[in-house]
Each structure stands twice: as C-alpha cells, then as structure tokens.
C-alpha cells in the first residue's frame, strides 16, 4: 500500500485488490467501502447497496470464500484476499448452479437483493459443508458432529441476513435446496 505524504493525498491509498481472479490496482479514498470500490471504481455494479449498514445483505460478496457484507468492509482492509462477486460466479458464460436454480424457481422479482442472496447462498453452502451449526441446529446434532445437514428450516435460518422486500423467500429456499440436492 502506498501512503504518500502531504495533506492532499494522505487520505487516499493505492490499493491492490483481487476480484474474480483478477488483480486490480486502484487509488481509493481511505473511507471507501469495498462495496463502493466495486460499484463506483471497478465498474462491478452487481453487488447492491440496499442499506449501507449491514442490515439487508444485498451487498454480500465472498472474501476468501466467506460471505461478508461489503458495505461494512473497508476496501483497504481486504488487500491480499480473494474477492468473488456475483460477476465472478458464472464461468465462461455458464451460470453457477445457484444462478440457474434462481431462474428456474423464479426466486427473485425486482432482482436487487438477488446478487446478495446468491453470493450468500454460495457462502452458506460452504459453511454447511464444513459442518458449521446454525442457531436452529439442535445441540444433540452438534454434539454428534452432524451439524451442517440442511433442510428448509436450516436454510431459512442461515439465509436470514439477506432481506427480500418482494417476498421471494418461498422460492429462494427451494432454489437453494435444489442445489444442495435436497427436497
């Protein structure tokens, strides 16, 4: 990181970000959130700003495979990490399975929460694979190392950080269960 001297530029930093597998050099105001860096400086407007306070999840991206609210993350703080946004999920034009499932289940209406829902679901399925429990996982299951098994209630709980005002929840949960191979 280059922090130059002098009043004029002491509030800005030269930042190197790795986004969707690509290294990008950009000079940013130190106050710039990862979300604003993506949207306003890197042209990656797929991540959405619904609240800017970490309360709605529309800005969810993956940082080193974990889902984070990019509106609560300073861009200067995620140098050296691998950032994946909604634009990075489809490979060579082939939609990610979750993207396909969201279309098939009509799991969105206005589409504004959708990138966050999908990125969150990718992160969530990874958490389940790693056996992480949720608030609704029974303690007996956790003790027997069975945490991470998903059903509709587990998905609802684990996805509750992503709000959808159009009310597509009843389609989002089945879309995620489809990808998880669950009824």
């Amino acid at each position, binding site marked *: 990181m280059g922090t130059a001297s002098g009043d004029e530029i002491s509030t800005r930093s030269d930042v190197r970000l790795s986004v969707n597998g690509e290294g990008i050099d950009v000079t940013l105001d130190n106050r710039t959130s990862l979300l604003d860096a993506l949207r306003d400086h890197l042209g990656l407007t797929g991540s959405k700003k619904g609240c800017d306070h970490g309360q709605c999840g529309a800005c969810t991206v993956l940082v080193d495979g974990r889902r984070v609210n990019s509106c609560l993350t300073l861009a200067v703080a995620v140098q050296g990490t691998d950032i994946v946004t909604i634009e990075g999920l489809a490979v060579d034009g082939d939609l990610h399975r979750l993207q396909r499932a969201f279309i098939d289940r009509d799991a969105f209406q206005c589409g*504004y929460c959708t990138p966050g829902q999908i990125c969150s679901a990718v992160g969530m399925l990874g958490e389940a694979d790693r056996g992480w429990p949720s608030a609704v996982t029974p303690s007996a299951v956790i003790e027997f190392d069975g945490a991470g098994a998903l059903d509709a209630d587990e998905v609802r709980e684990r996805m509750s950080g992503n709000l959808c005002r159009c009310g597509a929840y009843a389609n989002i949960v089945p879309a995620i269960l489809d990808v998880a191979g669950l009824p």
Partner: protein
Amino acid sequence: MTSTVGQDVGALSLARVEGVDKVTGRARYAFEYAAEGAAYAWPVQATVARGRVSSVEVEGAVGRDGVIEVLWHANAPRLGDTGDASLAVLQDDRVAFRGQVVALVVALSQEAAREAAAQLVVHYEAAPHDSVLTADHPSLYKPATINPGLEPDTTAGDPAGAFAASEVQVDETYTTPAEHNNPMEPHATTASWDGDSLTVQDSNQGGQVVRQTLSKAFGVDPENVRVISAHVGGGFGSKGLPRPNVVLAAMAARIVDRPVKLALTRQHQFSLVGYRTPTIQRLRLGADSFGVLSSIGHDVIEQTATVKEFAEQSALLTRMMYAAPNRRTTHRLARLDVPIPSWMRAPGECPGSFALESAMDELAVAAGVDPVELRIRNEPAADPGSGLPFSSRHLVECLRAGAERFGWADRDPRPRRRPDGRWLVGSGVAASTYPVNVAPATARVAVDTDGHYTVSINATDIGTGARTALFIIAAQRLGVSPEQVTILIGDTRLPRAGLAGGSMGTNSWGWAVEKAAAKLAARLDGEGGVVPAEGLDATEGTAADLKDQAPFSRHAFGAQFVEVRVDVDSGEIRVPRMVGVFAAGRIINPITARSQLIGGMTMGLSMALHEEGVMDAEFGDYANHDFASYHIAGHADIGQIDVSWLDEQDPNLGPNGTKGVGELGIVGTAAAVANAVYNATGVRLRSLPLHLEDLLER
C-alpha cells in the same frame, strides 16, 4: 370457470426475460450507469419538525475535501411549477416536517459528499410541532376526495338505526401503524444535461410523469427530457411519483455542469418517499342471529402532511365487499407536521381489510357462525356501493377452494383448543379484493425482413414480471416463438404508457400490446405474409377503448387461510403455512404471477408481525429509520405459502382478460393472521403489528 385450481392450464409459463441479467449482476439500476466525470449529491435533512431555515454555513464546506457545491433555498435555482409541492425542493425557507431536504451537498466523491452533509451546519428557527395522530385530533377534517379522487363519505339507508336494532353487534376500533414501503433499491438518479437536454436514469414506477415533472420544473421541452428506468429494484408505491431525488439530481447537474449521481440512503427512505399513514378505524357490524348483515359502518381516521394532502381510501373496500341494506363509510384526516404519506402496496384495501376482515371474524364468533360460511352468507348479488353488476366475482369459490386446500373443515372454532407442546395452534381466514384498474397506453410492434419482432412500450418492470408478461402477450398474439420477439420498455423514447401501480401495469400495457400486435398481424396478412424490405410496424393506443368500457364493478378476489403457532411462554407468533386462492381473471404468466401473489402475502405477513413506524412525539419523526429498527419479514419468518387461482374467464375486461395481481395478495393477510392468533389463544388483537406482549397473560 372451474372451482378447481388450474395454475398452468393453457398458459405459457416463461422464466423472466431479464432473468439472466438479474442473476449475473448485469442488470443496471439507476445509480449504476457510467457517467463520465460524475459528481455525487447528498441530501441534508431538517432536524426540526417545523420552522424555518435561517442560514446554512456554506462557506466552511465548499472547497474542502472535493466539495464543489452546497445548495440551499438561498442559492438554489428557482424551479417552475412542479405540480407537486413535495417536489418544490430548496425553494423556500419553510420546514414542514423533520427529514425534509434543507440542503444538498455536491462533491467529487461519495465519501466526501456524505461526510460534508453530516458536518454541514444548518441554523433553524424552530416552531412547535404536532406530529401525533389521535382519534380526536382538533385538526380532523373531511377531505374533498380520497385517493384516487373518490367520495370521502358514503351512506345508504339508516346504518345507525339498523345497527342499534341488530341482534348481533360488533363495534370495535382497529389501528394500523405507519408502514414504510422500503423497496430494496433505495430511490436513486443519475442525471446528465447536454445543453437543454436532460437524461435521467431514475428509479421509478413510470417515467412519463417523471418526464412531465422535470420538463415543467426546469422549463425545458418534454421531448428534451429522457427518463430511463430499465430495471427498478422494487417500488411498492413509493416510486409511483417522482421523488425529491430526481429533481435534486437534475438541479445539481445543471449547477455543477457535470453528471450527478444521487442515491437516497435507507434512512432517507423513511422521510422522503412516502409511507402508509397510520389508521384508526371503527367498524360497526349489525347482523341477525344467522350472521346476515343489516348494517355496515366503517369510519376511518388518518393523517396527512401540511405540504401536500394524501387521503388513503381505507374504507373503500367496505363499500363493495359484503351485502347490507344500511351502510356508511367516512374518512377524516388530521393535518400534522409529519413526512408526506403516500401510496404503499394496496393503499386503502390493505389497512382497510385488516379492520373489516377482523370485524367479520368477530361477528362470526359473536353469531356462532363459521367465518367462511359467514362471508358466503353476506355475498352480494351486485356491487352494494355502486349498484353495478360485478364483471365477475368468485369470492365464494375462492373461499371454498381455499378451505379445502387448507383443511379448514377440521378446525375447532373455539379458541385455545389445539395445544402442541409449548405452542398454541390456531387458524384464521380473511378475504382479499382489489379493483381492476386500467390507464391508457400506446404500443408499437414492428417486424423486420428476418421475421424478428420488436415490441416497444414505455412500461416499467419493478419486479412484477410485466416485461415477460407483455412479451408473452405479443408472442401469442403474433403466433410466433419467443425467440422471435424482443421487448423494449423503461424509456420515455418508447410509446407512451402509464404507471406500474394500482395493479394496472400488465392490464393497461398488455391491452395496447395486444392491439398493436393484432394490427401488425392484419397488416402482414395484407402483404400476403411477406415482410416488405422496409419492414412493417403498427402503433396502437387504448384511450378510446377505455372510454367505451361497459359499466361494471370490476374487482379481483381471493381468500387467505393461515395457521399460526403461538409460544405459550413468550407469545412468539410463528406462521408455518398460508394458503391463498385467488380469482384475478386470466393469468398471463403463471410463474411470475405466482411470485407476485406470494410476495403480497409475504408483505402482508410482515405487516402483521413486524412493521411499525414509531412516532417520536418529542422530535416529530419516525424514530426507527433502518432495517435494524424497522423490521420486515426475513427468510426465517416464512413457512409454506401455497398460492393458486381459479381459471376465471371474465368477458367484461380488456382483450387479455386480465385483472392484476400485484396488490391482491397483501389484502387480508394481516387479518387472517390476527384471526388465527385469536383462534389459537383466545386473545383478540386489534392493533398492528401483533405484539407478543399483548398475548402474555397478565
């Protein structure tokens, strides 16, 4: 018309045309357009609820940290007639509500604009304010009309006398709080001037009125104003009218001579883009011992602002819902120092149905009649308010089909009869209705020599699926495969069309698209089926057709059934399943229509359990200003939602036989939940949202 559920019969069910764009992040919303050299604008809001702005310390702000301009009423350019007092921003020193825009910071970065707005010093002369709605507020008055231009009061027969003489009486008051639309995409605008031509990418439910407003406000020809709204992140009524963001962005762009981007924050949404008024509703139902109504009274008290009147039509549905020879509805408003209320999904029907459908449940209990049966017994032969025949009305069929799908027959009407461990289980029902609205529209359909068709209409898809529905209407009318059709919407350069509001979008636009497609098909026939080298097109409007419509009372109907589980210790309410059966004419695209109805019921559940704007009397504003304090339903709130519809064919509608499904689903949901909570617990809650503490034994 069948009473069985036929979701997909004969319909072409298509995934959203813009689906791939939305799941890949390619779909661009208003703030997301590239604009070379753009500046960022950030509104500064009043911190007093009433008074005057005496000065703003502009000098300390401009020039620091990339701040290039601070506008306030002393230096902002004068606007022409905006036609809407709420859009006359920065035009005078008056503060009419807390949160009103009193200054606008323009800077070279978002961060600088935001920080300067937070730091800006505004001096006020504060005056006492009055922001709390009460049933006996001294300012209560009868508005000249209620939304959308209807009589505020109606009376038939002798409602008071008939009520007094009734064997069974319900006389209760129901209240609903202020509710905030909160589309996921906060209102935003990117504005660019090129000489006297203005282009805005704006988040709205209809660009036509935005164009008219900007044309008048800035004194430029409407043809020189272009409004693009390709994708809109929800609206729910809050984007039905231009809001201050679009006027401010255009104003700032003109002053700083570069494009300006302005996104309202989530917090701004609570003061600047409308909300649903709180309501105090007294219902008086008088019936015989069989539950047959002789008198219905619905008296509504609501609030409006001092800047601009909005009179929500909360008792409107009571005029047409149930039969009774004696009836009355009234609406009274208190004029308060509050943000300006406006449309929110099913204005009128949504809060009104909480009162009416709760009261009907109370009548069912009082008369000892099953609540489904009670509604059937009060089914009118014609619209009891207007006297007109219904174009079609299948509420009874919806109730019966829903009862069957839900398993209503097994229900014990007595409360507190279904304990399940620590839960009390209960079920409730309510009816839904929403009027069929339609507005004039124009569409163009063209075909080129490759046999590719292009449909053009300035419709707006705010998430409804309208883009896809219009696409289907055109493809079906032309008898071509979907791959041969492109649809263009969301741009005022396209043929003129009205709002995505009042559940009339697909109904209105679809009419024009159908007509233009039919005309083009006829022209193509005239050419012997061969497209001439220059192509072929047809443009058709519907204004004359709408005037020629036969007089009918046109409404969609539905029935909603809800199961609740109430925790005996905490009072927590869970809703594991909901069933909705609707009759809304022809359904164009089952997959997206189903989503609309599910979405309406989900927002209705949110209204029942969570949503509550809490007025802070001291500061004269809603105290909760974000999703941490203003709760909306999340994933964990929603269980099974079973939505279906009757195959309703109504010949007295437009050519597509559609009624509209955008708002129908939210009407009645909150009452169904409250009625189920009564069945589960024996506690009747008459105020929304349903608070757990009111369910705890005292």
